[in-house]
């Protein structure tokens, strides 16, 4: 029996205000009713719809997909199904039309992304194989030239030696290009897992500067450093960030004949900004957009010195992006160049979360368990009122020391903020979580009672384990997040 919808006011309101498009069509195919959602979907005013032919074949008892050409927007896709009804005393059909344009768009986007990933993978495997195949013949070429140069095969003239040395230099450059390509392909295929730690960025910058200071001095350039006085801690891969500094500094030195090389670190509220600048040759405005592209070399000089590979800045950009940071360049021809990159500073909450995400990825990858603990000061707000910040900070340092003393393996990790210490133990079986928790809590409480603080400060602990609590980092984080301020 068709239902008599038109007499039921509640139902009418329901249809009128429904977010799904609803249209009523009579036997001859003329539209009797369209709700506002239908107007939006078809991109037509109500009066443009009602009394006009509906224009789509009725679906019968199937669900069909229809293409909706909008007046102002692109073609949409919707699913439509029908039901018979009685509308103002007439037999009619009610149509439910569900817009699936967004869904389709996402599906198409996903398919395109999958395809891109597949192509990337093939490309990277190809690069990796080619690199290997190139190295083998390069080995005998290099070794042959080396031996002639060293005089194993008879006397060579000065001129011959000069030419052979040039060959050797270029073989080494080719070899560096191959290394660079491999590096890029590994970064892009996600095969590089960053080994992130909490580090002082200034220390990383200094380490890069010191390995290049001789070059700076030899060129007669002045080095200007501008670093914050306070420790500027950041969660990054040590070797990779040093590589970034070395790359940028190396470029700065190469393209600067007189003046200064500047390295600075600015500690901002949510991020750290690092700048490597020079007073060198600069990059022409038209070349700036391509600075980070592969095999782009500008202002190449004719003469001696190690030639570039054209891959350095592309690798730098990839490394910064792997750290979810950003890099940009500012330059004026003949005035100098400035590379600015920013790295995100994690709040302790984000940092703890990141430690869990990274630890879990490693654990899943190695098919090993992961045990996570957060020891924290309970009712921290009250404790903060009673003790000054310095006292609490000393106490936290002591706690950190006690917990650190219990780390067994090299991969075991502990990080702290003002009120909590996160302990991540890879490999440690989940069955041991309870006993470790008890042992460490006891150790901390013993210290508190020794200091006569056991009445005023209580220690809490939250734990999570993979696989005990699941293999999703959000779930694991949820188990311990209460413990973090």
């Amino acid at each position: 029996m068709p239902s008599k919808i038109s007499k039921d006011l509640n139902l009418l309101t329901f249809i009128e205000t429904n977010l799904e498009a609803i249209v009523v069509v009579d036997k001859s195919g003329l539209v009797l009713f369209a709700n506002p959602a239908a107007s939006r979907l078809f991109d037509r005013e109500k009066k443009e719809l009602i009394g006009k032919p509906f224009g789509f074949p009725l679906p019968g008892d199937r669900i069909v997909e229809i293409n909706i050409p909008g007046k102002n927007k692109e073609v949409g896709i919707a699913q439509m199904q029908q039901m018979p009804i009685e509308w103002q005393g007439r037999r009619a059909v009610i149509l439910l039309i569900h817009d699936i344009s967004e869904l389709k768009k996402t599906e198409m986007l996903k398919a395109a992304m999958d395809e891109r990933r597949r192509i990337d993978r093939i490309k990277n495997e190809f690069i990796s194989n080619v690199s290997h195949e190139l190295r083998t013949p390069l080995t005998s070429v290099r070794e042959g030239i080396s031996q002639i140069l060293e005089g194993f095969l008879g006397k060579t003239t000065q001129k011959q030696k000069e030419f052979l040395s040039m060959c050797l230099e270029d073989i080494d450059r080719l070899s560096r290009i191959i290394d660079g390509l491999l590096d890029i392909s590994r970064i892009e295929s996600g095969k590089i897992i960053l080994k992130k730690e909490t580090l002082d960025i200034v220390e990383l910058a200094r380490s890069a500067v010191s390995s290049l200071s001789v070059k700076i001095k030899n060129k007669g350039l002045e080095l200007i450093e501008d670093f914050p006085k306070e420790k500027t801690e950041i969660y990054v891969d040590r070797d990779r960030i040093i590589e970034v500094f070395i790359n940028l500094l190396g470029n700065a030195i190469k393209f600067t004949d007189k003046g200064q090389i500047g390295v600075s670190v600015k500690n901002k509220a949510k991020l750290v900004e690092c700048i490597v600048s020079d007073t060198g040759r600069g990059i022409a405005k038209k070349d700036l957009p391509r600075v980070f592209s592969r095999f782009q070399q500008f202002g190449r000089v004719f003469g001696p010195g190690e030639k570039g590979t054209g891959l350095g800045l592309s690798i730098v950009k990839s490394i910064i992006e792997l750290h979810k940071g950003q890099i940009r360049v500012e330059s004026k021809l003949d005035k100098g160049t400035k590379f600015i990159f920013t790295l995100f500073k994690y709040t302790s909450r984000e940092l703890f979360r990141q430690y869990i995400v990274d630890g879990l990825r490693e654990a899943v990858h190695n098919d090993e368990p992961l045990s996570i603990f957060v020891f924290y000061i309970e009712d921290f707000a009250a404790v903060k009122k009673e003790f000054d910040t310095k006292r609490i900070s000393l106490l936290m340092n002591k706690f950190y020391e006690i917990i650190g003393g219990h780390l067994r393996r090299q991969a075991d990790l502990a990080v702290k903020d003002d009120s909590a210490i996160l302990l991540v133990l890879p490999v440690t079986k989940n069955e041991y979580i309870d006993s470790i928790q008890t042992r460490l809590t006891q150790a901390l409480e013993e210290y508190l009672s020794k200091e006569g603080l056991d009445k005023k400060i209580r220690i809490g602990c939250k734990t999570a384990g993979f696989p005990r609590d699941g293999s999703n980092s959000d779930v694991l984080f949820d188990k311990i997040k209460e413990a973090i301020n």
Partner: protein
Amino acid sequence: MAKKILLVDDEPHIITMLENRMKHEGYEVITASDGQQALLRAQKEKPDLIILDLMLPKLDGYKVCRMLKFDEKYKHIPIIMLSARAQEADKKMGETVGADGYVTKPFEPQVLLGKIKDLIK
């Protein structure tokens, strides 16, 4: 008496050149061009050191290395892996099977010779 080095590589050019360099350095050189031959020569001639390529026909370098390192009679022979595979994972694999050194191709002669001198005492 000259120390004996077993050189294993399936690239004849590399064998020729390395052999020349090693002889020049005063070493006695024997060679093999696949994994099986390498294993046999190592067992029969007991060299003082082996320079071993990774990608070899019949038996790859990892397997050769493992079979020698897990055998009481030969495990004292130092092995240097010489490979065009330069990724961390490859080096790690070399360590796992007990190689004493890992040098990537193309190599700096001084680096390779230095490693040999360190290991061959």
